[in-house]
């Protein structure tokens, strides 16, 4: 049997692809935070990314592969796990597990749905064409305006905050779990790894949700950030 | 014509004691490697003795079929041994040697064991440790990485190897894993949830067994060229004991009824350090490792019926009775002596806890001297177990302990080759009588089980097989789980059908009584009876009374037992009822043996035979022999045969632990 078809192999693939996606989420946040430096910084960053050309597409391809692997293994493992216990307990209590761990499938589906919406919204710009095709004073797509105008609509902001909550929930189990699956734990590190995993998840949540909240609070406006 | 008592030949080879086994081994005939696969050996029981024998025989090429009543070979009751295993390695350089281990075991057994067997046991003890270490048994180690030892009840040297409180389990897993390796290799098969209910003897040789599949209820014969019984002891005869609920005498008792002699059935061991009984509904007693006696002091209040909490009883009002009576060994006195002393003080009204059945085992001095963390590291799991069972914290107040039936030195009689009086029937481990005499020392049961299984019986069985042609046992390919083992023909000897029919008829009879009392109720009653008449102290009067009561109880059983459920089904009540039925017969043999042995030795204490200060008084003039009982048929008294015991190396002496 090829190792990646085994139960542990699939878990390893899931963990590795998850960590790749985590890396993307973290980098993405660093880019987003440029919004606090005003429209020019963010739009220039967006242009720089687009100018990468083939490299960008390679990165996108890599992320897509990671995503497919992550989703495929999660479906395969979930099906196997369901089959492993054909008859459920009438009463089942738990002692160690967390809500995050129990809801990985639900949070995973939510994250996927959010991802689709997010791509349609900002990348393919189909959900709100009215605000997503502006150009800035250098003739570049005005990402800054697109973000600010979007988040000024509470419905969109709320959708993003919910999406990020799902990501946070998913990661708060996922990061520690990935380390365990990759065999990186020992007796001393296990609580630390779980804690750091949750910390990263929370930091990402705060970082991401700060943006729509800042827009809604009027701290970030179409003209730039308030001093 | 009345049958004649025979003097049994133990087949002990001649020559000087230290060379007997080595020389004997050279005379044992091997079987040609290519022929080994054609021989089938049945091993009943997968404890230390059974699993190690099965694995070793399979490794050497024989086809092995194992049977156990548990759901896996790994669960045999050897697993519960906590303390350790002895070996004469002399790693701590405290003067230990094969000779000393041999002498301690002979003396510990109160001169009722066979010198040559015990010497061999001491001799192979070191190889057991080597073997187990190579298998990956995680023995305790010192900081330098070498094996650690501790001292154990009844020994003045540190020769006990241990794996925390789980030595039995770890050694068994070593043997079980070796057996699983042979199953993987196709050399052995394990039939779990299968109980042997009869032995098949054809042409005077053991040639198979009758087995009831405990899941389907099907009764099937299994043929073989040799049968090894490794079915453990019968302490559950007393109902409450430290043994597992499933332990029973059925396999050895059935073999007895087929002609194997039963030796010294009355020699049973009552272990001193068990958690006292709590009363109603109690199903078993739990052992606390004897290792606690290394750091604990045993005492009772000097005032009878002193109800004060132990902490409030001043030192002057405590009787450290083991230290007082046996200043040399103190709290480490052998098990029989410690148990009897505890019973004496309790009988005199000094007992503590519910019903006055208990003495204190106090570790507070050790806690004060070494600190709680050290004690926790040494005995943490025991303290935890004690708290779980009693709800009391033993760090704050001393544990209460009371003796409980634990081990049976008696068993089927075997010669030096571990073969019973039925050719082809070998008996190993606790199931035989051989090595512990009248009292077993701590940490020597594991040693004996593995010595028999790894290093003795594989040679002697091979020697036996070399003298018979394979497939002689008319096997039945249908029931062989081993592919490729060709048997000459299906079990067509009438003995197979007769034995299977007998087992089925008995099962039907048990189910057919439809009385009012459960088998468990009868077992409880029998247990109480045996504990009173044939427990820690025995008298002619009590034994005679028991001998009158047992047949009546047996009759009541067959009139009034209620065994629910069906024959062809998973039926635990039926399993248990069959075992109780055998106990109801066997109990009589135990009492008869106890009555006939008019002396006190080791665990057998006859109140009529004691020294003025209450110690056991042996009678070497009249009883320096192994009593082996032969079944004479239903309703007839068994016939006593004697194997005289000769002590050439350790002069017969009254034991003294004072």
């Amino acid at each position, binding site marked *: 049997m090829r190792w990646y078809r085994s139960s542990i192999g699939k878990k390893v693939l899931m963990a590795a692809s998850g960590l790749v996606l985590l890396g993307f989420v973290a980098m993405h946040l660093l880019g987003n935070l440029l919004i606090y430096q005003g429209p020019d910084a963010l739009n220039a960053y967006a242009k720089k990314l687009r100018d990468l050309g083939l490299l960008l597409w390679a990165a996108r391809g890599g992320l897509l592969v990671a995503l497919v692997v992550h989703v495929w293994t999660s479906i395969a493992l979930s099906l196997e796990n369901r089959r492993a216990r*054909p008859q459920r307990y009438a009463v089942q209590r738990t002692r160690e*597990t967390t809500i995050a*761990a129990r809801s990985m499938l639900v949070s995973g589906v939510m994250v996927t749905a959010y991802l689709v919406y997010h791509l349609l919204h900002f990348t393919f710009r189909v959900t709100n064409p009215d605000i997503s095709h502006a150009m800035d004073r250098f003739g570049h797509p005005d990402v800054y305006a697109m973000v600010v105008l979007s988040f000024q609509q509470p419905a969109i902001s709320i959708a993003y905050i919910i999406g990020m909550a799902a990501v946070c929930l998913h990661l708060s189990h996922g990061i520690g779990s990935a380390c365990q699956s990759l065999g990186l734990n020992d007796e001393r590190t296990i609580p630390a790894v779980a804690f750091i995993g949750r910390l990263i998840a929370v930091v990402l949540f705060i970082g991401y949700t700060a943006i729509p909240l800042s827009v809604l609070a009027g701290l970030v406006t179409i003209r730039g950030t308030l001093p | 014509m009345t049958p004649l008592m025979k003097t049994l030949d133990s087949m002990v080879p001649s020559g000087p004691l230290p060379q007997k086994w080595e020389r004997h081994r050279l005379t044992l005939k091997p079987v040609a490697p290519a022929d080994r696969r054609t021989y089938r050996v049945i091993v009943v029981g997968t404890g230390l003795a059974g699993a190690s024998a099965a694995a*070793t025989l399979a*490794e050497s090429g024989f086809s092995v079929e194992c049977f156990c009543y548990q759901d896996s070979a790994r*669960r045999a009751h050897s697993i519960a041994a906590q303390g350790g295993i002895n070996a004469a390695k002399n790693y701590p350089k405290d003067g230990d040697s094969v000779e000393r281990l041999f002498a301690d075991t002979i003396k510990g057994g109160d001169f009722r064991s066979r010198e040559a067997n015990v010497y061999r046991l001491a001799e192979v003890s070191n190889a057991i440790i080597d073997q187990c270490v190579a298998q*990956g048994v995680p023995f305790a180690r010192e900081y330098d990485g070498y094996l650690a030892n501790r001292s154990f009840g009844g020994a003045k040297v540190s020769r006990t190897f241990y794996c925390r409180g789980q030595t039995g389990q770890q050694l068994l897993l070593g043997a079980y894993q070796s057996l699983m390796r042979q199953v993987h290799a196709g050399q052995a098969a394990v039939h779990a949830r299968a109980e042997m209910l009869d032995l098949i003897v054809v042409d005077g040789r053991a040639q198979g067994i009758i087995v009831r599949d405990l899941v389907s209820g099907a009764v099937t014969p299994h043929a073989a060229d040799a049968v090894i019984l490794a079915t453990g002891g019968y302490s559950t005869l007393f109902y409450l004991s430290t043994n597992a609920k499933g332990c029973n005498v059925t396999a050895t008792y059935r073999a007895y009824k087929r002609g194997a002699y039963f030796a010294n059935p009355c020699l049973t061991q009552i272990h001193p350090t068990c958690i006292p009984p709590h009363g109603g509904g109690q199903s078993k007693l739990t052992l606390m490792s004897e290792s606690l006696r290394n750091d604990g002091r045993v005492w009772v209040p000097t005032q009878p019926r002193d109800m004060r909490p132990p902490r409030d009883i001043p030192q002057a009002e405590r009787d450290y009775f083991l230290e007082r009576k046996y200043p040399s060994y103190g709290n480490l006195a052998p098990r029989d002596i410690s148990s009897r002393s505890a019973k004496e003080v309790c009988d005199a009204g000094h007992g503590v806890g519910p019903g006055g059945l208990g003495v204190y085992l106090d570790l507070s001095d050790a806690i004060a001297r070494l600190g709680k963390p050290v004690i926790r590291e040494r005995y943490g799991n025991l303290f935890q177990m004690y708290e779980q069972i009693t*709800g009391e914290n033993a760090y704050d107040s001393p544990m209460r302990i009371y003796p409980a039936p634990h081990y049976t030195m008696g068993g089927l009689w075997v010669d030096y080759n571990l073969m019973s009086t039925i050719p082809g029937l070998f008996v190993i481990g606790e199931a035989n009588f051989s090595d512990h005499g009248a009292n077993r020392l701590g940490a020597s049961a594991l040693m004996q089980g593995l010595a028999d299984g790894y*290093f003795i019986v594989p040679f002697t069985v091979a020697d036996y097989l070399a003298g018979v042609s394979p497939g002689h046992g008319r096997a039945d390919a249908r029931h062989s789980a081993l592919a490729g083992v060709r048997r000459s023909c299906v079990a067509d000897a009438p003995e197979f059908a007769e034995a299977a029919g007998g087992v089925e008829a008995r099962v039907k009879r048990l189910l057919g009584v439809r009385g009012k009392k459960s088998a468990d109720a009868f077992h409880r009653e029998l247990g109480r009876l045996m504990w009173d008449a044939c427990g820690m102290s025995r008298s002619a009067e009590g034994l005679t009374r028991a001998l009158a009561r047992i047949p009546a109880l047996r009759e009541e059983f067959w009139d009034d037992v209620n065994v629910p459920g069906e024959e062809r089904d998973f039926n635990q009540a039926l399993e248990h009822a069959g075992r109780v039925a055998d106990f109801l017969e066997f109990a009589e043999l135990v009492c008869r043996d106890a009555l006939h042995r008019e002396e006190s030795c080791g665990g057998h204490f006859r109140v009529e035979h004691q020294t003025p200060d209450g110690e056991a008084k042996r009678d070497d003039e009249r009883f320096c022999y192994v009593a082996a009982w032969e079944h004479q048929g239903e309703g007839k008294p068994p016939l006593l045969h004697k194997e005289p015991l000769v002590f050439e190396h350790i002069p017969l002496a009254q034991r003294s632990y004072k």
Partner: protein
Amino acid sequence: MKLTLRLWRQRSARDTGRFEQYQVADISPDMSFLEMLDSLNEQLCAERKEPVAFDHDCREGICGMCSLVINGLAHGSDRGVAACQLHMRRFKDGDMITIEPWRAKAFPIIKDLVVDRSAFDRIIQAGGYVSVDTGDAPEANTVPVPKPAAETAMDAAACIGCGACVAACPNASAMLFVAAKVSHLAKLPQGQEERRRRVRSMVEAMDREGFGNCTNHFECMAACPKSIHVTFIARLNREYLKASTRRSSEDIH
């Protein structure tokens, strides 16, 4: 104490099974949980009903035979003990107790609360041993084993094979069981020769038996009567990865 028991009854593997309710009275707090079931069985026997089948043997928490899910927890609410060591003082008069068997595809029910755990034996057969024939062993102290390694090996070896890890796992995974044996032998010098082959074949056997996958809920550790730690699962993952991705001399033969 008086208690109401809601018990799983199932005639055989083919039967569908259902819960049945029973009342038991006169239960003393000093009784063990299994003694309470004994007393129910005595009662059923007196009423000429069939007793409840449940596995048990040593009743001191070491044989691994008992296998009850009590109020939704494998081996009941006390940590670090098997069901046989659970005592009735943990319950209150009038309590209702739900008792179910281990539930996993790889542990088919035989009857009532009794399941077939032979899958564990087959996993061990696949490689859970050191291949050393009797009599081939070198002197025991030839190879010293550092105390910490021996201690860790013992921590892992403490597994009693009861299957509570599978029963408690939301995915019915046997990872803790396999991890314990793999770690025990991988930690010792004696286990090195077959280290890679062992982990590969044991994991393969585990997958064949139809156990689920570990998704790191750590419920196994909470249910384990020997409190075996989930770091051994991380170690198993590591061992498996190393063994699968690197070729070694073991693969030649």
